[in-house]
């Protein structure tokens, strides 16, 4: 309702301003018309005087004087006596010096002996009242060729009266409009409030826990429906995010509680009667390695959370991407060679990005570790599956005849075009099933859900988070070069981080 009141107030202010403007403009217009009439009459009277003589002029002036309307006429002979006209008391300075004058006078005395003839005589009492007042006249005086003084003018009061009539008429109209506007405002406001109330009601329901509630959309297709659609889309997004969060926390619960349970079981088993010192020792060693694994899972989760929250984005600086990638490869090359593989580098030098060396290195490390684990490790032997038990690596190295050296390559590529920098890690391992392509980026997804293998299942999720921090993306697809090898154990895998160049 306050909005409606404000609206009406604004309307009133504008109306009054408009009224004032119209009044002012019409008064100016009337003044202009009067001045033109006076000038015309003077011209006519002058011509008459010149062509027909003073007598005809006097007759004409007298005739004009007797016409209704508040014209002011005076014709005097050179000796100062009034010959014709309706205005007795012309101040003498006006007669002496020709020109335009404005002066006040008393209508009763000035028009004495003449008929008072306003535009509307019916309103006699008002007219009489007006006659009592001091009036204002605007006149032009001139001296004719024969020495006669001619004064023609208009009563300004007439002008004011006219303006007042216009304004009064308009005022009535405006008051009517204001009343109508107020009515319309109240009606509109009630309708708007009703629509807003439905949105409020929905949000109250959602706040009280009913997340699936949505704002109803009418068939009117107006701004409120737009708003409702926008709100509903936002709610859908929030709901899906919450759903994702719930899955993540379920996964966290599973992935942290499982090792915690193992930890607890081992400690209990060690305390059981009859166990030897050697048993105790083994149990404790297992406990330590289990807790180390827990810690690394926990660290990975924290890092992903911080990267996704953009906590690192202010720590970004100019980084030599090529150098960073080569450094990581320098760290991993010997380990890859020892696992029977070969690290092949195709790194374009001198590529810079606004990035973080630490995060970029960590992302590349995760990709390399995956490539080692799945294309060189024991998992590489099981086509179609990236989730086998964590076997020993040596026996894989011991039978190199099984596959050609070509298939033991891990290719790290850094390239750029005008818009983006691409860092890719490709292997010739078993790849992943096509329909699982997106899912591998999720947290804790190890395909086929085998959870006996080492690794937290968070590796690619971190890489994806790092890519998103750079407003880029991570794409996982089959390695196109792997198709060339028929003996290949799988389609191979390429993980490609695309990072846009942002100036």
């Amino acid at each position: 309702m306050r909005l409606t009141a404000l609206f009406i107030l604004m309307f009133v202010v504008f109306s009054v301003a408009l009224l004032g403007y119209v009044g002012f403009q019409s008064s100016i217009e009337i003044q202009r018309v009067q001045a033109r009439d006076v000038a015309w009459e003077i011209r006519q009277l002058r011509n008459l005087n010149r062509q027909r003589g003073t007598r005809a002029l006097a007759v004409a002036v007298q005739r004009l004087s007797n016409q209704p309307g508040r014209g002011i006429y005076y014709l005097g002979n050179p000796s100062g006596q009034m010959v014709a006209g309706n205005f007795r008391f012309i101040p003498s300075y006006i007669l002496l010096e020709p020109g335009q004058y404005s002066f006040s006078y008393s209508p009763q005395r000035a028009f004495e002996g003449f008929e008072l003839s306003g535009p509307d005589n019916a309103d006699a009492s008002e007219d009489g009242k007006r006659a009592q007042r001091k009036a204002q006249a605007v006149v032009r005086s001139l001296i004719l060729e024969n020495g006669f003084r001619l004064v023609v003018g208009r009563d300004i009061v007439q002008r004011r009266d006219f303006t007042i009539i216009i304004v009064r008429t308009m005022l009535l109209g405006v008051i009517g409009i204001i009343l109508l506007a107020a009515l319309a405002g109240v009606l509109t406001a009630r309708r708007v409030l009703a629509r807003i109330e439905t949105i409020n009601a929905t949000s109250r329901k959602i706040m009280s826990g009913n997340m699936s509630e949505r704002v109803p959309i009418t068939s009117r297709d107006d701004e409120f429906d737009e708003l409702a659609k926008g709100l509903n889309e936002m709610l859908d997004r929030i709901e899906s995010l919450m759903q994702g969060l719930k899955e993540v926390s379920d996964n966290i619960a599973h992935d942290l509680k499982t090792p915690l349970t193992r930890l607890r079981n081992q400690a209990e088993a060690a305390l059981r009667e009859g166990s030897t010192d050697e048993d105790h020792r083994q149990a404790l060693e297992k406990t330590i390695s289990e807790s180390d694994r827990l810690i690394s899972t926990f660290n990975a989760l924290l890092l992903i959370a911080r990267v996704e929250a953009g906590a690192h984005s202010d720590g970004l600086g100019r980084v030599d991407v090529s150098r960073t990638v080569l450094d990581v490869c320098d760290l991993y090359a010997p380990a890859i060679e020892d696992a029977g593989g070969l690290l092949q580098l195709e790194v374009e030098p001198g590529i810079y990005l606004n990035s973080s060396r630490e995060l970029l290195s960590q992302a590349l490390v995760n990709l390399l570790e995956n490539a080692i684990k799945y294309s060189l490790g024991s998992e590489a032997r099981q086509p179609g599956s990236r989730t086998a038990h964590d076997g020993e690596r040596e026996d894989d190295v011991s039978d190199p005849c099984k596959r050609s050296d070509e298939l033991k390559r891990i290719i790290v590529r850094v390239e750029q075009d005008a818009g983006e920098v691409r860092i890719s890690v490709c292997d010739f391992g078993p790849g992943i099933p096509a329909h699982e392509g997106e899912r591998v980026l999720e947290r804790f997804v190890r395909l086929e859900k085998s959870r006996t293998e080492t690794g937290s299942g968070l590796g690619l999720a971190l890489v994806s988070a790092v890519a998103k921090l750079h407003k880029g993306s991570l794409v996982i697809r089959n390695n196109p070069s792997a198709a060339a090898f028929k003996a290949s154990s799988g389609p191979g895998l390429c993980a490609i981080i695309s990072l846009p160049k942002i100036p």
Partner: protein
Amino acid sequence: MKILLIEDDREAANYLVQALGEAGHTAHHAADGETGFAMATGMDYDVLIVDRMLPRRDGISIIESLRAEGNTTPVLILSALGEVEDRVTGLRSGGDDYLAKPYSFSELLARIEVLARRSSPSEASTVFQVGDLCLDRLSREVTRGGKKISLQPREYRLLEYLMKYSGQVVTRTMLLENVWDYHFDPQTNVIDVHMSRLRAKIDRGHKTQLLQTIRGAGYMIRA
């Protein structure tokens, strides 16, 4: 070595004091920031171990005040905050090393022993020698028994770090931080592979094995 431990978790502190004692060091314990600061200024310690979050006064402020007073005792910061930025703020305040919780005792021990050594003049010398192995930091030449050993740049830096702290345990994390400047723990045993290559270059064909693996801790080079 005299060590001051400023740590508010009693249980962790008791364990550390006992374990440091078993390792042959004397450790004192302060349970809050104010007490810790008073003890650090009152006595001459070889190493300070400072927890970052402490009651009454936080670790960073203790280190800043100590450094402002001209106290140069090496400081190891312990913290549950393991992020790179946290590490940077810790080191910028005047800390010498940063260890994220949870840590293993062997990691902590290796780090404080290296820290205590850091203030000794031997660290700045231009030639490191362990047995008949020589490393010249000016010419970047490595010889064993007078015979030149050619090393990759990374292998050189690895050996340089090990020899700088010869006779002391150096953990894999320390190598990763100081030689490669990475602050994460890789799952693959990348460091071990580098070490076995380095070992092949300096120890192969020699009777005394200088580069030793310390089980459950890391590596050590000694004659």
